[in-house]
Structure formats: C-alpha cells, structure tokens
C-alpha cells in the first residue's frame, strides 16, 4: 500500500498515512484554498486502506486550527474510521489539543459525540 506524506504549510496540515509504519496523522493548520481537492486523496486512501487495514489503527489528529469547511471534511475522515470500527476493526482516535485551547478540546468532544468509534482526548503544552 502506498503512503501519503504531505508537509504542512501555513494553510494546509501535515498529513502522514503510512500503514507499514503504523503512522496515521493529520496535524497543523487547515484552511486550504480548495478543501475538497486537498482532502480527496486522503479520503480515497482511507477507502483503499479499509479493504485491508492493520490489526490496530491509531489515528492522530493534532490540529491547532481548522476552518469550518475543513471541519466537514474532518468529519468525513472520522466517518471512514467509524465504518472500519463497525466492520470489526480495532480503531482508536487520538485527538490532541493545546491545553489552553477549550475550543479545540470541545471540537474533539463534538466529533466524539457524532461518530461511534473509540476516542481519546489528549492535552499537550505548546512551546
């Protein structure tokens, strides 16, 4: 299976999808000019991955900012993960938020409410 490695910029997140090394991560800032075009390959990759996923998948979200258009696409990703969980796969979402960022924490809680998949909230300190 191919890997996706996208280096983050000031308006697009870092994305690493590497099944072999068990790294699944979206981090940084997300306000792409064209959200659909940016997230489309990621969604497609997850569709492929769903047909033969690892024994356990830990998917990390470590975002500091995302706009409302991105929030919709992040939900699409989470719903793919939910689908795998429903198919009996071992899935875990780790949602990281800066310790002083209540909005990012709340965003995680909201996603956890919407999708039925094991969901862990982790706070961290920004340097």
């Amino acid at each position, binding site marked *: 299976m191919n890997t996706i490695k996208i280096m983050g910029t000031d308006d697009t997140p870092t994305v690493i999808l590497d099944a072999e090394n068990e790294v699944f991560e979206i981090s940084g800032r997300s306000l792409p000019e*064209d959200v*659909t075009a940016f997230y489309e390959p990621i969604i497609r990759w997850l569709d492929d991955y769903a047909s033969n996923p690892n024994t356990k998948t830990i998917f990390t979200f470590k975002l500091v*900012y995302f*706009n*409302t258009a991105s929030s*919709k696409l992040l939900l699409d990703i989470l719903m793919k993960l939910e689908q795998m969980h429903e198919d009996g796969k071992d899935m875990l979402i780790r949602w990281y938020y800066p310790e002083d960022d209540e*909005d990012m924490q709340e965003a995680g809680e*909201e996603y956890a409410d*919407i999708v039925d998949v094991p969901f862990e909230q982790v706070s961290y300190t920004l340097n």
Partner: protein
Amino acid sequence: MDKKNVRGFLEFVYDFYKSMKAHEITLVYEGEITHQITKAFTSLTESNMAKEEESNTVQKKVFHVMVECLQNISKHADSFGSDDFLFAGRGIFMVSKGDIEYHVTTGNVIENAKIEELTRILDHINVLDKEGLKQLYKTQMREGRLSEKGGAGLGFIDIARKTGRKLEFHFLSIDEENSFFILTSTISRTE
C-alpha cells in the same frame, strides 16, 4: 488632476484618514477577496495581536472570525449569474480595535431575492443559545453538503459560537435588484 481636483482629493484622503482613526479601524480593504488576501490579512492581524500581547484566546477568536467572514464574501458575494460581474466575490472588509473589543465588519452586494432566505438563516442562529448552536453545528456538519465553492453553511454558526454574541446584520437597499449586506462581529478583548 487639475488644482481643484487635487485639493478635493487631498481633502478626501485626510478625511478618510480621520474617519479611520475615529472608528479605530486598523485594516480596511475593498475588492476581490481571494485566498491570498485571506492569508495576508489574517497573518497581518495575527502578528499585530501578538505584538500587542493579546491573549491566545482572543487571538484565536479574531482569527476564526476573520477567516469565516472573508470566506463568506469570497463564496457568497453575488455574481449575478456571471463570473466577471463587478461585485462577484468582492466586498468591503474592515477590522477595528477598541479598548475592550475587536470588530470585524464585512459588506457586500447581494440580490434582493436572497434576503429572505439569508435573514431566516441568521435569525434562526440568533435565537439559539450555546447548546443550541452546538447542536446546529453538528447537524449541519453531518447533513450539510459542501457547495461547489466549498461552503459548508457553517460559517455564521461558527462566528456566533466563537464570539458568544448575536449576529449583527443589516441590509441597505441599493435598488430594485440589489442590497448591501453588512455583518459586524464583535470579539471581546477581556474574556
């Protein structure tokens, strides 16, 4: 420009300057709102706020509101069925900073035919409390579809949630076809 026009223009510049000062406007722009413009304005405001040691919470709120306001204009300012129409994706964008709050104001032309629907959406948001807004955001995220231009119908809800205030909006009639839509978002500097 002849002498009289130069004089008139100089007076305009000075009046404009005074008026900006009086309204504590730190940024004003009229024109097409592109992604590059959005990035430039948000990073400019971010660095200004950092320099003035604004709290992280306030900085984040201002950033959120600015992005959603700018994207509203770029996605919704009316194109009247043609991409090269004078007002397509254009509008006025202002940020002002007072002692206790920031204001982000946008103004753009919209077709009168759309006022009713827009008013309904905004009024609906304005009757909801914190919990209601949260539920609406979740519902819209789940059920809403991304428009061709990437709008998710979430921007106004997000602004109401981030500012914790009612959306303040007005329509000024231009002519039988069009109006000018003004939205002001206020972010408290003390919370």
